[in-house]
């Protein structure tokens, strides 16, 4: 499991952002995670309480948006969802594709006052 270290990094980044922007209370943190990222949303949620413990984000809620893992077929150039199609192009069955999106791990925004 590699999520905890990364989530602690996220908390640091958000704390710094809050400081710089004069934010005193963060209600919700919104993260975006690609379907093809090695970060598992469930694990992120599980270790979030430990990562925010004792910080200004101790009461902050976490929301995760999942971004689709899309590929571009190398044979017929069709764009398709890699997981939903189990790695095969739905148009030609090709298994050689290039990743268009889905590896992201972004701090999207915060709801704050």
């Amino acid at each position, binding site marked *: 499991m590699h999520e905890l270290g990364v989530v602690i990094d996220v908390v640091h980044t958000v704390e710094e952002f809050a400081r710089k922007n004069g*934010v005193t209370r963060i209600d919700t943190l919104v993260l975006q995670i690609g379907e093809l990222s090695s970060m598992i949303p469930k694990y992120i949620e599980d270790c979030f309480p430990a990562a925010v413990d004792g910080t200004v984000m101790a009461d902050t809620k976490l929301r995760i948006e999942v971004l689709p893992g899309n590929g571009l077929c190398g044979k017929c150039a069709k764009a398709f969802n890699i997981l939903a199609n189990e790695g095969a192009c739905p148009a030609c069955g090709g298994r*050689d594709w290039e*990743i268009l999106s889905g*590896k992201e791990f972004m701090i999207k*925004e915060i709801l704050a006052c």
Partner: protein
Amino acid sequence: MDAFKVLEIKKSVYEGNDGRARELRSELKRDGVFLLNLMSSPGSGKTTTVVRTIEALGAEMRIGILEADLDSDVDARTVSRTGARVIQLHSGGMCHLDAEMTRQGLSGLGTEGLDFVILENIGNLICTAEFDTGASRNAMILSVPEGDDKPLKYPAMFAMVDVLLVNKIDAMGFFDFDMEALRERVARLNPDARVIPVSAKTGEGMAEWADWIRTEVKEWRAS
């Protein structure tokens, strides 16, 4: 009632590590230490390849080894028999190394007087690819028993490496491993990656691997 507003941050989580990795890379450049990050699944032959590499290049380069492992120090003991400077890093349950852990490892090893350091990363093909360690070059080992379809399953790793060693070719007869299919798959993901078939057991291909390292080190020094 509190009125919340949305504050957009839009920052990649990897940004912090990427920045630290760039810093480490340029410090290593300044100090003349070429760092090679060696990745693979568990048991593909990283440690055996490290030992072979020390044998091939030990006379012309001062080599140090960072052995990363979840827990044990078996690999560091194996490598220390070559006489090379080696340190065992424990990742504390983390399944990858990041730039900060690599920096700590390098300072524990002591890079003074070294010109080539190999980092044996943790056996894992997924997240090791997502964390820049600050290495000058990235290498991956795929061993024949793992199969020629791995680029389809772990595209991120194959897309980021500078060189791919296909190890255990001495065992080719026991597996239906199609080297040409593998080369094609790798080329699609990463046209610049060099593919070198080797056997860390028999030594086959190790001369080509050593030559690749010599060329890259020379290029890196001149850059």
